[in-house]
C-alpha cells in the first residue's frame, strides 16, 4: 500500500462517516434549519467522494449546483415558511417510526447483500480523468444530444413554473371598502388625516397602502 492509496482510503472513511452522520442529522434533527445546513454537509462530502472517483468536473458541478443553489434555495424556503408550529401528535408515532426504520434497514441489507453478491465486470482500462470534461462534452453533443436539449427545456419549464407557483397572484391594487386594516400591524399612533382635496380617493389609497401590500421581497429566486 503506497501513500496515494492510503490517502484514498483514509479520505474515503472520513468522507463516508461525514456523509452518513450528516444524512442522519438531516433526517433526525428536530430543528429544520439544522437539517438544511447538514444537507450542505452531505452534498460537500459527496463532492469529495466524486473526487475520489476521478470525476473533478462533476464534483465541482455538485458543489456549484447542490451547495450553491439547491441548498441555498431550501434555506430561503425555510426562512420564508419558518413558523414555529408544534405539529399535532399522531397516534402510534413511535411505532410508525420504528417500523419505517426496520423497513429501511431491510432495504439497506437487501441492497448491500445484492451489491456484495453480484460479480461486477470491472473494466481494466485506465481512467480517463484528465479529459473528463472533453468526454462529457462529446457525449452531450453526440449520443446524448436529445436528453441534453430536453434537459434545457425542462430547466426553462421548471423556472417558469416555479416563478408562477411562488408568485403571489393576487395583489390588491384597490382597497375594498369593507376591508379594515388589521390592528396588530399598525403602530399605536394618531391616524393621519386624509387629504380632502380633489384627489380624495388617491390620498385614501396612499394612506392605506402600508397595511395592505406586504409584497414578498424575495420571489424571483426560485
Amino acid at each position: 500500500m503506497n501513500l496515494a492509496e492510503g490517502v484514498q482510503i483514509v479520505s474515503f472513511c472520513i468522507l463516508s462517516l461525514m456523509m452518513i452522520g450528516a444524512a442522519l442529522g438531516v433526517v433526525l434533527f428536530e430543528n429544520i434549519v439544522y437539517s438544511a445546513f447538514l444537507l450542505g454537509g452531505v452534498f460537500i462530502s459527496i463532492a469529495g467522494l466524486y473526487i475520489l472517483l476521478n470525476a473533478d468536473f462533476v464534483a465541482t458541478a455538485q458543489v456549484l449546483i447542490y451547495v450553491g443553489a439547491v441548498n441555498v434555495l431550501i434555506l430561503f424556503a425555510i426562512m420564508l415558511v419558518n413558523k414555529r408550529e408544534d405539529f399535532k401528535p399522531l397516534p402510534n408515532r413511535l411505532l410508525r417510526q420504528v417500523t419505517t426504520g426496520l423497513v429501511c434497514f431491510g432495504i439497506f441489507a437487501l441492497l448491500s447483500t445484492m451489491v456484495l453478491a453480484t460479480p461486477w465486470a470491472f473494466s481494466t482500462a485506465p481512467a480517463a480523468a484528465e479529459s473528463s470534461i472533453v468526454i462529457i462534452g462529446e457525449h452531450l453533443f453526440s449520443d446524448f444530444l436529445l436528453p441534453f436539449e430536453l434537459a434545457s427545456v425542462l430547466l426553462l419549464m421548471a423556472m417558469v413554473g416555479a416563478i408562477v407557483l411562488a408568485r403571489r397572484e393576487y395583489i390588491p391594487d384597490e382597497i375594498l371598502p369593507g376591508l379594515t386594516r388589521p390592528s396588530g400591524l399598525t403602530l399605536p399612533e394618531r391616524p393621519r388625516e386624509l387629504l380632502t382635496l380633489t384627489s380624495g380617493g388617491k390620498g385614501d389609497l396612499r394612506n392605506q397602502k402600508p397595511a395592505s401590500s406586504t409584497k414578498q421581497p424575495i420571489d424571483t429566486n426560485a
Partner: protein
Amino acid sequence: MHLQLQAFLVLAAALFAIGIYGLITSRNAVRVLMSIELLLNAVNLNLMSFSNYIDAQGIKGQVFAVFVITVAAAEAAVGLAIVLSIYRNRDTVDMEQFNLLKW
C-alpha cells in the same frame, strides 16, 4: 486493500435507506424535499462509481449524473415553490395537514 466499487455502492445504499426513512417519517414538507435530494444523491453516487469502475473510458455515468443534477435542481425549485404556495393557502407545512385530496 484497494478501494472497491462495493464500498461506494454500500455507502450509496445506506444513503438511500436514510433518505427513504426521512421521506416517510418526516412531517415537515421541506424536510421531505431534502430527503428526496438525499435519494437523488444516492443514485448519483451509484452512477458515478459505476462510471469509474466499469466504464472508465466512456464515463457515461458522469453524463447521467449531470442530467440527474439538472433534474434535481429543477425538482427543488418547483417543489419548494409548491411548498410555498401550500404554506400560503393552509398556513402550515405539516404533511399530515395536506389532505385536500383525501376523502
